[in-house]
């Protein structure tokens, strides 16, 4: 039953290396920590986008991620006001985590930074006045402003901006943009706070820290002001909520599977000994997978852990088959002994059918999970790596540890399992008796026709995660009272120069008319040509013969202030506020909405909520250099493409498996056993569709695992044909463990995990049924598709 000594030694060394690697990584994780990611973008496929689109997507994502909004509501405005002050006060004590996006402070800061460029920046109205070139009007306007009481608080002092042109310019920008922050009273009974995260949401621990801080603020505030309602909105909250429910899932799946499988094994093996190996193999498998992730990426997505928890049902199979056949062989040996045979019972080598079956089983599982790596959805890729690592390490553990445990007699309740097999056989017998090629083909065709008729797909990435209803309700409330951008939608403009880009954006906005309001860099700065033109127009005011000099002198302004003003004007002659400079100057105040890539200049234009999106899309499609981006739709298309290509790959996988079976067994009958997982796949899809589910990429990828598990059963049926009774019992037992694990996964709160779990659950249940049917036919010589040889 054990491998040859040489192979055994290799296995032991490898096992030791794995254990040492785990110990080393565990220490490293203990000292350096390990990041469990919960970003929901892991469910979105990586798209084959251009560099510019990738940058644009990451910018918009950062804008969405790095802000949260808090809304306070109360019937009594006075209570609301005090509660708001308390919140602001409390927020300052968490300034390393959160900072209120103080629009007034931001505006003041921006004014300071861009005021040297003010002579090239004009509001539309002031530009029209200058274009009229009427010195009298300019003089009157200056006097009016200087005498007006409202100029007391104008943005720049009178002697720096006597016509308050810069004030008008900033005011005009602010009417178009909410990028500098919003907040304050949004009704008699509501107060809104836009809060910036002080660290990247993706940085380790930040998400939890933000949530804990806001939870703390909410608890304090609602305890102090019971009549105040606290609502929140932000990616950080949804991600944390997803993480929390995923963690609960992991607990549920691992504890549920663990208890269920342990009880099952205890009942069957009647001792704890055989239970220790599967437990050890699970721990080593999961430990190795975690260690690999820690060493390679130092992080793991929480959804990967959810999926990974279902591995319990897979890795346990190796122990089950090992002990089952070991015990069976012991029984045979003891029978042999009684028949005066002195040949040792466990004299086997690597060519022994069980070893070959276990090895092939490992390969099929690795291939099944490995197929997930073909997807571009990062969470599926990491599930592939996690599972393959876990399975290999678990298999190795079984190979090394099981012989040690098996030295003691392994007793099992074979009769009990046989009763289950008999029951299944009894239930399936009527079907098995009719299991003819013609009927299988006809049934398959019939189901395929039905599937084609009712096939329904779901590729919307939003359906893969569950969002808390309470958080969604709070978000809706906040969206109703604040200026938010259309989520996941924006316009990307491209040009060869800053000016061409700004012109393009301006034209586009103009063409949209009232169809949509956009947030772009064009809201903030005019083109360099316009700035130069504005500066030239200002010479009438600030130039050598400028009207303002006379006005200020006549009114008695200090000569040095007048001189400073003219100096400022003259020195601004060579200064133009280009995109790069503006991005630099507005850093941390306005999100950078322009960038360069591949010698082209790009600008993002975010779309304010309430826009006529069809119009924006239509216009963008008809405008050269403008692209309408809807990331959800792009992801949907990509997921659809992957789902379709995954189906194609699944067909190829079946062909490959059939070819492999032919090469190994050179028997048509053996090849025909591929019908087991194929039938399971078709029946699973049929049942899913009949139950009203739409097929997604996660269902499709799970079908690879259905193939892998089905292949396991084929392999054991074929390889262990001399022990078909024991093999079938082991298959039933291992299928039961898989069904427990994937059954719990099917109860996950993460829809993607749910889809995966339910597919494997149904698929594997059908795998088991069809396997039992085939075995029944073989044993009773009633079927046409028997593996070579038959036993009683």
């Amino acid at each position: 039953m054990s491998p040859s000594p040489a192979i055994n030694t290799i296995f032991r060394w490898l096992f030791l290396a794995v254990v040492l690697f785990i110990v080393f990584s565990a220490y490293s994780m203990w000292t350096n920590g390990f990041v469990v990611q919960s970003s929901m973008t892991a469910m979105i496929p990586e798209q084959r986008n251009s560099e510019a689109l990738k940058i644009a997507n990451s910018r918009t994502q950062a804008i969405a991620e790095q802000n949260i909004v808090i809304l306070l509501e109360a019937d009594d405005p006075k209570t609301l006001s005090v509660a708001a002050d308390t919140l602001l006060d409390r927020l300052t004590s968490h300034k390393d985590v959160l900072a209120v996006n103080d629009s007034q402070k931001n505006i003041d800061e921006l004014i300071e930074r861009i005021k040297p460029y003010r002579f090239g920046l004009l509001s539309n109205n002031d530009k029209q006045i200058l274009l009229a070139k009427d010195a009298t009007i300019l003089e009157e306007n200056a006097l009016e402003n200087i005498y007006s009481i409202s100029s007391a608080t104008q943005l720049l002092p009178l002697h720096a901006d006597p016509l308050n042109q810069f004030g008008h310019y900033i005011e005009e920008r602010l009417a178009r943009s909410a990028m500098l922050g919003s907040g304050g009273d949004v009704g008699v009974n509501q107060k809104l706070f836009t809060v910036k995260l002080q660290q990247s949401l993706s940085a380790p621990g930040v998400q939890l820290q933000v949530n804990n801080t806001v939870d703390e603020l909410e608890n304090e505030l609602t305890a102090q002001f019971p009549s105040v309602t606290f609502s929140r909105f932000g990616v950080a909250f949804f991600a944390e909520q997803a993480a929390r429910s995923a963690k609960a899932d992991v607990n549920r799946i691992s504890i549920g599977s663990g208890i269920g499988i342990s009880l099952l094994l205890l009942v069957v093996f009647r001792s704890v000994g055989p239970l220790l190996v599967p437990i050890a193999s699970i721990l080593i498998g999961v430990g190795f997978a975690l260690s690999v992730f820690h060493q390679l990426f130092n992080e793991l997505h929480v959804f990967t852990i959810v999926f990974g928890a279902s591995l319990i049902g897979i890795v346990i199979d190796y122990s089950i088959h090992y002990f089952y056949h070991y015990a069976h062989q012991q029984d045979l040996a003891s029978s042999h002994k009684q028949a005066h045979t002195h040949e040792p019972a466990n004299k086997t080598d690597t060519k022994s059918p069980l070893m070959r079956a276990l090895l092939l089983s490992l390969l099929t599982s690795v291939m099944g999970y490995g197929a997930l790596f073909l997807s571009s959805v990062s969470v599926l890729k990491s599930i592939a790596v996690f599972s393959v690592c876990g399975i290999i390490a678990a298999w190795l553990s079984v190979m090394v540890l099981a012989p040690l445990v098996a030295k003691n007699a392994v007793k099992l309740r074979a009769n009990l399992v046989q009763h289950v097999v008999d029951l299944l056989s009894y239930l399936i017998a009527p079907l098995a008796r009719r299991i003819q090629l013609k009927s299988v083909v006809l049934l398959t065709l019939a189901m395929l026709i039905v599937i084609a008729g009712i096939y329904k797909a779901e590729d919307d990435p939003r359906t893969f995660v569950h969002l808390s209803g309470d958080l969604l309700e709070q978000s809706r409330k906040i969206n109703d009272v604040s200026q938010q951008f259309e989520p996941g939608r924006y316009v990307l403009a491209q040009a060869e120069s800053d000016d061409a880009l700004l012109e393009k954006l301006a034209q586009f906005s103009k063409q949209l008319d009232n169809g949509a309001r956009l947030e772009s860099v064009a809201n903030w700065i005019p083109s360099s040509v316009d700035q130069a033109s504005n500066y030239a127009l200002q010479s009438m005011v600030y130039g050598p013969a400028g009207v303002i000099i006379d006005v200020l002198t006549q009114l008695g302004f200090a000569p040095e202030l007048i001189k400073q003003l003219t100096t400022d004007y003259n020195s601004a002659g060579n200064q133009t506020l280009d995109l790069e400079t503006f991005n630099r100057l507005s850093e941390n105040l306005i999100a950078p909405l322009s960038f360069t890539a591949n010698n082209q200049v790009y600008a993002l234009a975010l779309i304010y909520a309430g826009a006529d999106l069809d119009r924006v899309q239509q216009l963008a499609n008809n405008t050269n250099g403008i692209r309408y981006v809807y990331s959800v739709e792009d992801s949907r298309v990509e997921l659809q493409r992957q789902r379709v290509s995954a189906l194609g790959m699944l067909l190829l996988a079946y062909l490959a498996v059939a070819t492999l079976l032919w090469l190994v067994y050179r028997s048509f009958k053996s090849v025909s056993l591929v019908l087991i997982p194929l039938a399971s796949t078709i029946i699973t899809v049929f049942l899913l569709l009949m139950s009203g589910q739409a097929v997604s990429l996660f269902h499709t990828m799970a079908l690879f695992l259905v193939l892998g598990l089905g292949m396991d059963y084929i392999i054991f049926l074929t390889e262990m044909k001399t022990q078909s009774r024991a093999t079938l019992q082991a298959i039933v037992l291992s299928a039961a463990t898989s069904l427990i694990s994937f059954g719990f996964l099917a109860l996950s709160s993460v829809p993607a995990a749910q889809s995966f779990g339910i597919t494997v659950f149904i698929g594997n249940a059908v795998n088991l049924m069809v396997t039992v049917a085939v075995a029944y036919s073989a044993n009773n010589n009633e079927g046409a598709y028997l593996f070579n040889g038959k036993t009683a």
Partner: protein
Amino acid sequence: MMAEVFTSLRRVYRSCCVCGFSVTCLLVFIVAAITVTPVMAQSLLPESSSISLGDNGANPPCRYVGKFEQSRALPGSNNKLTATGEFLYSCKRGLIWEVREPVVEILIYTQAQANFRVRKSLKVRHLQGPADAYIGQIMLASMSGDTEALSKEFELISADTLSLVPRSALVAKRLKKITIDHRDNESLINVIAGGTGDITIRIFDVNAWDPSTKNDKPSNLDADFCQSFSLFPKPVCRVLLKPADYIAPELD
């Protein structure tokens, strides 16, 4: 009534906060200051008047006129710039703040929440900036005296004179403090504005307009009232009475 005023103030405050503009604080203060007695805000108008925004204009007194003089100290100079003018308030229509000498600047804040500037050229400009909206609402609301509204923006310190210190750091950067001194028949307001020059405003000769001499229907009283007040009644009164005709669709 107070609740309605408060509602208006909140709306305006919101628009201010959205764009963070604080220019208006001065005017807020100016009108508010007049309405303030130590810690409590009073109406700018004579004590006998009982202003109610719920008043539809039919129940006098609901219309007032008064005079003001404003002077500004120029930074870096000993010179002062002084301007004079008059204001009109109709609780149904709104406020006209008319600077007449040495320059002409007419600001019209209507109860319809639309604000305008009329230049000497008689060109009317719809003021769409959030700061203007804020000023307008606060000025109108202040006519009824609203301590709560004021104390939202300012810390009210009562001593011999009432002092208002802006709560916002951004406002405080430009507007250090405002003091109000009520005298016999006038109010004196000092605006410590720093960079743009301190301003002193004197408000005097505030009188209720008596419509008893008129035989007009109540709906015509405001028209008569305005006609008899403004230097440029044709555009100014029309704007006050029919602001919708002058509302521009959007900012360019």
